[in-house]
């Protein structure tokens, strides 16, 4: 991922128009991705974009039209990305997933991909809900938060960052789709990291928002007495934007009137200690104050292609001359199997 800055335009990084709901946090993430690649000057044709299934997983269509994209199957992006990445280790690899895609059906693949330290940026567009299937809880939904149907989530939240750290991920960060500046800073660092960089980005779903405190979910619709069970109407919402300083704690109002409390990590936070990072995350869950920033960073562990000791020519470009072992091994084997 060591592309030098080239003369690319911002427009070289754009994609098809988004078909997501107006104000969806995922679109803010898309924009940050575009900006980050642009700032780094990565060759857009070299980028490969992979995803699973969900609103979040649609987003690879919305950036870098010039790169190949693969919208695969639900929860299995990590394995597809792993395969693509070993096949051609020259291509900057970005995987986009949702919290359902990663935390529910894809949990096993996610953690094993982390363990392998696949050289990719793995973005979780985390809204605590299944957007595309209309608002069921995902595994990252907060304990006690309310869903579309009004039932409270009785299960504890799965924290993708903690799990990634425990599984061996070497770059683990959290951000918020409303904090463009932080996202871009983290993304640029992530793109430059050799190994897996997991970015868990809280990305409110304006249509089926189920986040912590969203006991007032659908407030807007309720006020207006729209029957809740027929929510086929999606009000157009404004994109949330905030900018925070290091160490700052801020409570952000979401579309449904609920609040999300964020704390940006202090400047002197040391992301090199696994145990500390895990402690911090668990404290932050307990205090309902999400710590954002680079939570854990371990630059020295070899990435998957290094672990596998793959040659520098991408495997896809090896030809007969390079791959054919010739007649000798067969002759030897024939002789030995008697």
């Amino acid at each position, binding site marked *: 991922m060591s592309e030098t800055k080239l003369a690319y335009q911002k427009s070289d990084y754009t994609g098809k128009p988004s078909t997501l709901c107006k104000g969806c946090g995922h679109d803010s993430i898309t924009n940050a991705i575009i900006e980050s690649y642009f700032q780094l000057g990565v*060759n857009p*044709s*070299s980028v*490969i974009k*992979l995803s699973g299934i969900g609103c979040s997983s649609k987003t*690879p*269509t919305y950036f870098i*039209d*010039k*790169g*190949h*994209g*693969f*919208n*695969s*199957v639900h929860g*299995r992006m*990590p*394995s*597809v*990305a*792993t*395969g*693509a*990445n*070993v*096949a*051609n280790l*020259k*291509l900057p690899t970005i995987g986009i997933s949702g919290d359902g895609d990663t935390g529910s059906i894809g949990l*096993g*693949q996610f953690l*094993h991909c982390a363990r*392998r330290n696949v050289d990719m940026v793995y973005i979780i567009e985390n809204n605590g809900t299944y957007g595309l299937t209309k608002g069921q809880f995902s595994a990252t939904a907060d304990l006690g938060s309310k869903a579309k149907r009004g039932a409270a989530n009785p299960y504890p939240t799965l924290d993708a960052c903690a799990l990634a750290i425990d599984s061996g991920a070497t770059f683990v960060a959290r951000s918020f789709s409303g904090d463009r500046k932080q996202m871009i800073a983290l993304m640029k660092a992530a793109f430059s990291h050799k190994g897996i960089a997991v970015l868990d980005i809280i990305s409110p779903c304006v249509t089926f928002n189920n986040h912590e405190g969203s006991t007032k979910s659908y407030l807007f619709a309720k006020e207006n007495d729209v029957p809740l069970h027929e929510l086929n109407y999606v009000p157009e919402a404004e994109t949330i934007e905030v900018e925070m300083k290091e160490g700052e704690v801020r409570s952000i109002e979401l579309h449904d009137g609920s609040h999300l409390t964020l704390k940006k990590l202090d400047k002197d936070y040391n992301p090199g200690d696994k145990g500390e990072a895990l402690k911090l995350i668990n404290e932050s869950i307990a205090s309902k104050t999400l710590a954002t920033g680079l939570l854990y960073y371990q630059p020295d562990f070899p990435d998957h*292609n290094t672990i*596998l*000791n*793959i*040659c*520098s*020519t*991408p*495997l*896809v*470009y*090896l*030809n*007969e001359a*390079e*791959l*054919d*072992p*010739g*007649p000798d*091994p*067969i002759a030897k*084997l*024939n002789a030995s*199997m*008697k």
Partner: protein
Amino acid sequence: MDKIVNDFSIRVATVNGTGSQSSNNILFKSLFRMGVGACGKNMFPSNIQGLPTWFQIRVSPQGYQCLRENDDIAILMNAVTAHDDIASMRPGTTIMYSSDTIKFRDDEIKPGMVMYPLPVEELAKKITNVKLKQLLKNLFYVGAVQVLYGLDESIVEGVIRDTFKSKQAAIDANLEALKIGVDYAKEHFKKTDKFVFEKGNVNNGKIIMEGNAAAALGSLYGGCTVLAWYPITPSSSLAESLIGYFEKYRKDKDGKGKYAAIQAEDELSSAGMVIGAGWAGARSMTTTSGPGISLMSEFIGLAYYAEVPSVFMNVQRVGPSTGLPTRTQQCDTLLCAFASHGDTKHIMLFPSTINECFEMAQETFNLAERFQTPVFFMTDLDLGMNNWVDKELTYTKPKYDRGKVLDKEGLDKVKDWGRYLDVDKDGICYRTLPGTDHPKGAYFTRGSGHDEYARYTESPLAYTRNMDRLNRKFDTAKKEMPKGIVRGEAGAKIGLIAYGTSDHPVQETLDRMKNPNIKYMRLRAFPFGEDVEAFIKSCDKVFIVEQNRDGQMRQLLETQIRGYQDKMDSILYYGGFPLSADFIERTLKGKL
């Protein structure tokens, strides 16, 4: 007394994990080197240590690579199964047994049975390497067989030396144990049965190999660069052999690998990796067995619909579910033909021999890239994990068919490129590889609806066009599949059809029946080519021989080559042991 030379069957019953496999291989290899036509098959349990296991060796002048239903000599070393084993032996057969752990009642011994009691535990006391006693005990029966049936002493010794190579301690220990057996047999056994081995020459130009190793070697020569797999019997040794070959033959001068071998966390993941790598442009494969195919089903549909080259090697075992994981069947024919939800159809290849494992494995990658679709290499436990005698492998300079791929220059030349445009009207479209540095090089791959330009669409028309084109592609594939192999007179009116490992006992059946009105086609691929239809058409009656309960290949033939159903009948064996000519002949005669 009459002699029966090189035409009988031996069963060795032992306990798994006791090292008998090594002795059995010594026995088998010695016969091979003597030029005796030998076939050896393992019936082992799904267990690591302590359960019954059998090794069957059949020798025949023709070197048939399949068993008889009945054995002539039983070497019974396992007290747990000895009574069942002897009960299954016919009168007049020979029983060698571990006489200090097994006691037969008089009524268990049938008329004419020749009994050779071998006091294994007593003899074991003579072994000097105490630690390996358990293992070395198995050499006793090898020694006894050498004496009773005439194994060439120096050949056996040579096999032992070659087996343990430079490990002199092991060689010495084995030779010592062998000698204990030899000496005991010489002193105590009087040969009263008719069976003898005599040196022959049927193995000139032949080798002993497992199908999994041959398929692995084929994958190496076929240009596979990415292997993603999850261990499952009986496919693990295919992956492990390939890794071995990779390590040996696929390093660049800096010692880096020109391959990637990943042990995935499960079969869903290995399928995903194969598809990711295939999409990126590598020749990629996975190895698995039935349960793995079930788990990969969703991904297989993606590869079909998004048109990603990918190779799935299915070493079949007895289903359904966990079934009998260490026994053989051909029970995933229908599953692999139609794997995944929605309308799907997949290419399958059916190797029958070691040489075909080697050659077809290579071809698999060509087909996958040519047709941009999943290709199933359908082998089974019998072919994959048993030691087969077959002719030597031959090297052909590889020429990969990478299919329709447009690179930078190619893109410059075409005016209107669409990933799913059927330019050549054969249903196969042009793809580009990710990373192609060209302004119009990229496209978006998805398992959802897409038009000719790979754009997302929910249009019924675009969807239907695409599905019809996929059908057209499959029709093109029909013409390019390996043809069936036919034996017998064109004018014969009774047809047999078989595939994979069933070929061997079918061939033997034909040899035996010598019925000029019977001909035989061995299928080698799905979709079926015109030759298959022509064959069926030319028969009055067709029997499809298969190793499954439901006549899966018959069903497939019926629905894919419509109009001949009334002629078709099945010969089915599904007990999990390798199929025998005895079974086929008996069943066929019952139906004629």
